[in-house]
């Protein structure tokens, strides 16, 4: 299998500072699902843009080089 075909099948994202491979065509919803994260308990930032509409997660496709931050509320003062 050539490098090209592997690249076609996966996308490499930077998620919370780490490079991770996902199947090509993955959406933000797929990304959360793969990490077993409840969309109601996290907030996603995609390429420095905060996603305010959780209903749109399934429609946002991810591409190689995308930077995603997944955050949540933790204890703080």
């Amino acid at each position: 299998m050539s490098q090209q075909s592997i690249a076609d099948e996966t996308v490499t994202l930077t998620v919370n500072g780490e490079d991770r491979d996902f199947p090509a065509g993955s959406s933000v919803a797929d990304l959360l699902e793969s990490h077993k994260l409840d969309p109601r308990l996290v907030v996603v930032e995609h390429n420095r843009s905060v996603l305010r509409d959780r209903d749109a997660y399934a429609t946002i496709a991810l591409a190689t080089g995308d930077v995603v931050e997944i955050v949540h509320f933790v204890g703080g003062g």
Partner: protein
Amino acid sequence: MTTATLPVNDVPFEIAGREFRSRLMVGTGKYRSNEEMSAAIEASGAEVVTVAVRRVDLNRANDEGMLRHLNPDQHFLLANTAGCYSAEEAVRYARLARAAGFNEWIKLEVLGDEETLLPDVAGLLEATKVLVDEGFKVMAYTNEDLIVALRLEDAGAVAVMPLASPIGSGLGLLNPQAIRTIKRRLSVPVIVDAGVGCATDACAAMEQGVDGILMNTGIAAATDPVRMAHAMKLAVEAGRASFLAGRMPKRETAMPSSPLDGMLG
């Protein structure tokens, strides 16, 4: 009816038109367990509860997310921008917090120095302006400088939060006169934030006439946080009542409490 039948002869505590039932606000950091945190919040009687925004740890199975432990129907979740050292970074964190979907309020911190955690007031003012323009209700953590407090109010902050002493220091109220001055000169609520270490400190801060106190370490780092949360609740109520009651004038000399007349001959 005597005033003693009123828990506190008080006016409602309001920020930006929203009424809050407790003048004590508490943080959720540094507890030894989530159970202890929940019990302490309960004992404090606080309605406003602060949280921080951090990355989800994708490599760890256990979830540290606060939303599993706090009921947003019972508590008003106030997200902070703790740990941010520039206006740009604080604005980014505030936007993330808002997207959680609970409210548009933010406890804005822009820090300037890692040793003291004192605010970078230039960055704080800049971030306040940006966030107010974006519709945020900004509660600004600042030092006890009157001019900065006035500028924050002018910039649209809904509350100004001067420190009692540095974050996590427990040194108590270092500059009561400055806090009184800020309270006297500002129209927006003044909430003392940071540095309260024990009930005396909380009471003393409230006796300056401020509208409320936000604390975290003073409760969480106590030997018995739940008991301290209870003590802080009482201290905030006592301090408020004491302020409203109006203290007696101080004298350099003694004055007897009992009549001088009628002493035996």
